[in-house]
């Protein structure tokens, strides 16, 4: 379970997150949406501990995550970043094994159990057959799955994903989101996923949090947050929200600006 | 790939091993190296032990005058040959080119700043004569190899030169010849002094050391041999007013200073009176207009050996031709 309390982050004098509070239960997928610059990536980075915070706390079952040393924190929280500029020379197997770092000694020596966990992680994302390939040879979708496997190998109860589907084509977007949702539910992971695509958020998230200019404007079920009012105001674009033809979720349709 | 790696390494090894025999500093690799018990070419001097303190304040002692000497500086080579010890020199540095006989002595390196210690050791020297152009690390390395090194410091004046000649004479068993050489040098210097005393004026002399950048040439400053010798030869060194020994001046200073005589110590690098005169604004110099720009062998005034007196005489003839008919 992940509890973000009054998190405030500033870049120099400019505040980019204002007292954001958010809770993600175990087994729940919370989608973080908002226009570019609203602070989605900043929130993910701050929660994962790589950005200094001005105020607030990030808790999980009693532990204050931000005050922990990186190696401890990495046992609670794993991050799946966007698959860009990955070191191309490492193999998929080596990459996923790096997810075991929080449990290895500083030499990085791997036990049989670590290898078994890595193997299982690759299986869960259906990428086991890629194990010996070099990361540089893979497609964007495959690389993204490898990063998800790496995060799973970290064996953490909390998973943060930073716009993992932005560079993927439709097929991979859907398969990735299905995998994430299945894993969250089966393994009781608390998943916070920053998403670009509102309709993906609508279909695969249990709850949706809307960020606008560093503030949490709304948080609730997809139907509660994905309303024409909220979305139009946040994205500065008139939208219509209609019921999805074959799923029980809202469908956001941007209108022409000329209309 | 692995097979090719083996092949490469092994052939490289054979190649390098095969290269070695062709490159040796010893005169004849197939002959056994001469041992000290073999008869020596020079007359055997008396076996009196010699104890001295050298220029680095090190105590140096020899059981007898040295018979197998390696010279690490061209000035030392010149001194050795001048006092009659030429046949005792078994190795010399790359720059030693005078006298002509020195060139046939084994070369032990030095042109790139690195001296071939293996070759030096293989020559079995009983004395190594180092100079100020050798770094102290070299002296230490040779000393650590168990060799006897004597460091001959640069003399500050002609008296220092005579002292060095006597020292080398003592070290090599040629004290008598060294003394004779010193006397003849002193006589020649006295002759120059006598003639110069009659000089009516002391013209200003510009001695050029380096003109790689013709607009910012280097001249000899105060305290250098050149400065000393020009004064002794009855001139005034243009560079005496400057602060450093290797002093850089600008063309403007040269034009304003307007020396009467220009001596091109960088003739060896291709500078000629014509090329000097062709530099901007220098055609107005008094020296150029009076055709008193002369090429010069810098080795005569830069190497602290007996040829300094040759240099003095040459300078005097250029500065006061009227006194040296």
């Amino acid at each position, binding site marked *: 379970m992940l509890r973000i309390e009054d998190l405030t982050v500033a870049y120099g004098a400019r505040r980019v997150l204002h007292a954001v509070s958010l809770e993600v239960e175990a087994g729940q997928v919370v989608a973080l949406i908002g226009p570019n610059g609203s602070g989605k990536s900043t929130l993910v980075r701050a929660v994962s501990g790589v950005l200094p915070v001005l105020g607030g706390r990030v808790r999980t079952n009693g532990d204050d995550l931000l005050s922990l040393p990186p190696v401890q924190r990495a046992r609670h929280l794993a991050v799946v970043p966007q698959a860009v500029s990955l*070191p191309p020379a490492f193999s998929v197997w080596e990459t996923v094994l*790096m997810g075991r770092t929080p449990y290895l000694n*500083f030499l990085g020596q791997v036990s049989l159990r670590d290898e078994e966990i890595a193997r299982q992680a690759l299986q869960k994302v259906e990428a086991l057959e890629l194990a010996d390939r070099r990361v540089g040879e893979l497609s964007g979708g495959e690389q993204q799955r490898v990063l998800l496997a790496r995060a799973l190998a970290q064996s953490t109860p909390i998973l943060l994903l930073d716009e993992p589907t932005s560079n993927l084509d439709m097929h991979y977007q859907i398969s990735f989101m299905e995998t994430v949702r299945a894993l969250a539910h089966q393994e009781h992971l608390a998943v916070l996923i920053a998403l670009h695509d509102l309709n993906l958020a609508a279909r695969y998230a249990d709850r949706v949090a809307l960020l606008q200019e560093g503030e949490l404007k709304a948080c609730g079920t997809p139907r509660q947050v994905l309303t024409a009012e909220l979305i139009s105001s946040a994205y500065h674009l008139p939208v219509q929200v209609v019921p999805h033809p074959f799923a029980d979720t809202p469908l956001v349709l941007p209108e022409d600006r000329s209309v | 790939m692995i097979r090719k790696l083996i092949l490469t390494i092994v052939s490289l*090894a054979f190649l390098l091993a095969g290269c*070695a025999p062709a490159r040796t500093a*010893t005169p004849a690799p197939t002959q056994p190296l001469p041992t000290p018990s073999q008869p020596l070419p020079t007359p055997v001097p008396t076996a009196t032990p010699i104890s001295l303190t050298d220029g680095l304040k090190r105590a140096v002692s020899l059981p007898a005058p040295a018979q197998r000497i390696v010279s690490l500086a061209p000035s030392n080579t010149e001194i050795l040959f001048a006092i009659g010890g030429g046949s005792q020199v078994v190795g010399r540095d790359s720059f030693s080119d005078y006298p002509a006989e020195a060139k046939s002595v084994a070369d032990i390196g030095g042109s*790139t700043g690195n001296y071939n210690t293996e070759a030096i*050791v293989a020559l079995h020297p009983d004395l190594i004569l180092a100079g100020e152009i050798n770094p102290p690390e070299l002296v230490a390395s040779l000393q650590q*190899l168990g060799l006897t090194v004597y460091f001959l410091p640069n003399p500050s004046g002609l008296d220092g030169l005579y002292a060095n000649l006597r020292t080398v004479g003592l070290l090599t068993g040629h004290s008598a010849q060294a003394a004779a050489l010193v006397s003849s040098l002193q006589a020649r210097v006295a002759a120059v002094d006598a003639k110069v005393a009659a000089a009516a004026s002391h013209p200003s002399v510009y001695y050029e050391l380096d003109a790689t950048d013709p607009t910012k040439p280097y001249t000899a400053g105060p305290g250098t041999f050149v400065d000393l010798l020009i004064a002794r030869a009855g001139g005034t060194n243009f560079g005496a007013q400057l602060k450093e020994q290797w002093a850089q001046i600008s063309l403007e200073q040269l034009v304003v200073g307007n020396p009467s005589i220009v001596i091109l110590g960088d003739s060896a690098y291709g500078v000629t009176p014509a090329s000097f005169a062709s530099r901007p604004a220098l055609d107005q110099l008094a020296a150029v207009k009076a055709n008193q720009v002369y090429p010069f062998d810098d080795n005569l005034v830069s190497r602290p050996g007996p040829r300094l007196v040759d240099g003095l005489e040459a300078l005097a003839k250029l500065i006061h031709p009227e006194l040296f008919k």
Partner: protein
Amino acid sequence: MSHRFLPYLWTSLFLLVAIVLSVAIGSVFIPLLSQLRLLADWLMRRPLPDSLQTFASIISAIRLPRTALVLLTGAALGGSGAADQGLFRNPLADPYLIGVASGAGLGAVLAMSLNWPYSFWGLMAVPLAAFCAALATVFVVYSLARLGKTVPTTNLILAGVAFGSFASALTSYLMLRSTGDLHRAIAWMLGGASQAGWSPVLAVLPFLAIGLGILVLSGHSLNLMQYGDDQAQQLGLHVTRARTVILVAASLTTAAAVSFSGIIGFIGLIVPHVMRLWFGADYRRLLPLSILSGAGALLLADVLARTLLAPQELPVGIITALAGAPFFLWVLRRTKNQGYW
């Protein structure tokens, strides 16, 4: 499982061959038979025959210490080159990237411009000055590059290049002003074993043991750093601490290497790349392999420096530049490895 040890086997073999060549070859030709005889006598503790005394002293007093010093220097350059390439995630990185070479050169030239007494410490003045100046440079560059609690690599490179240029300019000016020492300064800059005997080896050994030891153990951290600061930290690495430790170790190693051997280029740049091309980018392996082959490569270069133009000895830095670049290009062209970096 055994194929994991092959790279170590090959590089160790390479190093061994290089050591043998370095001891066996020099400007004085010592026949192979004599060398084997000397080895046999030494192993069996027999007294050496008189006729071989000269050879024995050449080998034991000149070649062995020199081989040891060159070996250590090559190991240092290979190791710190690999570490710097990993630290800065830059294929152009070499041990001198953050200005260490320029700082060391400035220290050395400053020391050479003064007259030291002829004593043990007087002779240590130049290497000591070079060593201290190298470390001081890293400290200054690190302080300039630091932003609060983090030390971004870009800042390190920029500060290093800027400070390095500054130091180089000062050094050039000092060299212009010196007279007789110019040759000595240039010879030092071009690289080569300037002092004979075992004292340089003993002086350098503790720093190299510590520095290289730390670097060899830092392979996993370097692997993680290839993913960028964010990901490395998210995976559990304390990035700033790891970076500082590796930087200090690499700088200590480089400073010790240049203090007696001057600035020898190309080994630190090219050896890690060749190792990467042949044996992969895992830093846990890359570091020890670069250390071993750096030692071997510099030994070979030194043998060439001593023999190509005998009795002249070329500065070894010239050989590494002349031979290193074409060799690397040849290896690069022959590799079918896409994305080896």
